[in-house]
């Protein structure tokens, strides 16, 4: 099951970058998101599973679709004139994957922590409690990160200097 979902995610990812019509790319992205949410569920993170589906696969993707629909589904233009580089990069990727494969021979994967209480793991309560105690600092940092991104988005999307 895990591997099926992983394969789906990878296929979706390839789809995102190889389709020439934006709308198909977005739909591929939905596939990626859904596959990822399945992975979360398999790792018994129910809450994240739900959030992933609702927020990403649902809201964000719908937003993407709206934007694309508004702008008109223009085909992306431009084909590579860099045949040679395409070959070379293909080669590099294969070699890199091969090397990673070679490195990963004989890995002993860690077993899950026996201490973790599986009955509350991944529940809304556990996550909520975690966010405001142990993970307070990263949680707050994330909020700053989002604030910065928001400021930047506002600045960049403003039409003229006089706006706002």
């Amino acid at each position, binding site marked *: 099951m895990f591997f099926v979902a992983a394969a789906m995610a990878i296929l979706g990812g390839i789809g995102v970058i190889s389709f020439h019509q934006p709308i198909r790319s977005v739909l591929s992205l939905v596939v990626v998101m859904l596959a990822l949410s399945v992975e979360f569920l398999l790792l018994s993170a129910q809450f994240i599973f739900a959030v992933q589906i609702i927020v990403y696969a649902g809201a964000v993707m719908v937003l993407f679709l709206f934007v694309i629909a508004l702008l008109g589904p223009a085909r*992306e233009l431009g084909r590579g004139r*860099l045949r040679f580089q395409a070959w070379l*990069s293909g080669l*590099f*990727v294969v070699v890199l994957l091969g090397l990673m494969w070679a*490195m990963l021979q004989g890995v002993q994967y860690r077993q899950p922590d026996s201490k973790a209480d599986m009955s509350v793991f991944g529940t809304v309560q556990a996550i909520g409690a975690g966010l405001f105690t142990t993970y307070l600092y990263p949680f707050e940092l994330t909020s700053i990160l989002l604030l910065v991104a928001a400021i930047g988005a506002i600045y960049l999307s403003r039409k003229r200097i006089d706006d706002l």
Partner: protein
Amino acid sequence: MTDQALALLVLLFPVAGAILLAGRGWRLPRIFTVIVGPGVVWASFVCVLALWSGKAHGDFTYWTWIKSGSLEVPFNLLIDNLSIFMCLVITGVGGLIVTYSVGYMEHEDDPSYARFFTYMDVFIFSMLLLVLAGNFIFLIVGWAMVGLSSYLLIGFWYQRHSAVVAARKAFVMNVIGDVGMILGTFVIFVNTQSVRYSEVFAQLTPSQPCTGICHLPYRFVFDTPTLELAAFLLLVGAVAKSAQIPLHTWLPDAMEGPTPVSALIHAATMVTAGVYLVGRMHPIYDVAVYAHGAVAIIGAVTALFAATIAIVQTDIKRVLAYSTMSQIGYMFLAVGIGAYAAGFFHLLSHAFFKALLFMAAGNVIHAMHDEQDMRKYGGLWGQMRPTSISFLVGSLSLVGVIPLVGFFSKEQILGLAFSKPNDSLALIVWIIGAVTALITGFYTGRMWWMSFWGKPSPQRPVEHPHAPPLVMMVPVGILAVLATVGGVIQTGALGVGPAKVNDFLAPAVGPLRWEGDWSEVVIGLSTMVLATGLFLAAMRIRPWSNYVPWAQRLLERKYYFDEVYDAAFVHPMDAVAGFALRGIEEPVIDGAVVDTGLLTRAGAASLSLTQSGYFRNYVLVFVGGAVVAAVILLLRASS
């Protein structure tokens, strides 16, 4: 005033001069430059004289920069007889040359005029720093700054392409030397944990005075191969700075600079820095016998090699340049066989007569409207009598005629090489040195007869040359007098009389370890007589190479050094840089955006043909790098 303050003043005067001239010189009347430029050098000279007469010596620390653990970098000046000796040469002869430039450079406009003296003062400062430095770090600073200021001075006429190329060549060669110096210092620092001369050398000297015959009077703190390595690396620096084989090709080209620059840098001071270095590092070279031998061999070979090239040159400054290389070769030879004081005496006498030759040649060039080809001179004896006489004095001194200073210094070196006991290397370099002395007689004669004797050449640019102004003639006259009578302080080559330089330098470089005998006097005299004969003969005979076409070509092409270097280093480097430019930079700059789809979508079409790299390229190199890194990591992990 204390010696400590005086020593600092020696350095500060030229700095102050340079700053004054750089900041304001070009706006004030020319007389300001005329006073400040040479004035600060003479002020330094006075300070050095005061140090000399006060018998100052000591290692003065002004500032401790870093003191952290084993690392200590002080700013200290080492005042001993060697550094005072060098300072006397630099500020004394340098002062005369800078004064001479007041006249020589008079045709420049005000800003250039001020710029010239700024550079000269910077150069004097760098050179003084080089010889006064009490530790390796400041030695390197001075070393690098000397290279830098010579670069500026050679390229002074930056409108001339040839001057810029020559300056760059000199800079690159010097930088190779700098690398050697830095690495050598590193080796020394890592092994002795100190950069201060006194501490480094203290680790090389015996803990208790040795009695009897000590062939190796030093205690080894680090093993000899390491010491040899350090000595060889330092030698690279010395060879580059002193234009010895194989890093010599910059010196003849450097004649593109103004003639006073040639006199100052390429005769009297900068090129002798290598000799100073070997002398200063003598505790190292005394132990590192192979490196020490290499010094002598390089010196001897360069002496002969440069002298043969000088035979066929026709540009008067190039003859002098090759003759300089040849004479520096003698100094290397001397310090290489351990006759340090003899080497330094030759340094002094060479500073006198070669600066004299350059400045007299400068008078001629000045009068001939910058024509430097000797074939177009001729017949100047009647028209420029004082200059001709000065040039003759310099030439005869270079040949080594009694009683001019050149005789005493050169014959002392040859005599000591001849009489060094139990040393076959010294004998070999003596043979080369003696042959060189004969060739020196010949090419010097050729130069003098060609330029000053005979009938005026029909191609001569000026019919009636004007006499040089007083400000140019006086320094020439002073040097002519010094080149004539300077020998009396050291008549060792005749086996009798005082050896003042030897005595003066003995505390710094150690006394001479062997005694000469009467045979060397005889040999010295006969060499001199033969050389003088060749000098006279050069009026009539042509060099034999004229009859042997291939030899002539070989000499005219300067043994093909430039060509070989071009083929071996310059062209491959050009190719690599060109490839980098074409293959990596230009696509980045001129290429079109294809892959930044984001932008295409945003409608920024104007982008596509502006400067921009293929995003794909980046990722390609990125992943390629990752692959290499992965391979390296795997190899490391599996080993």
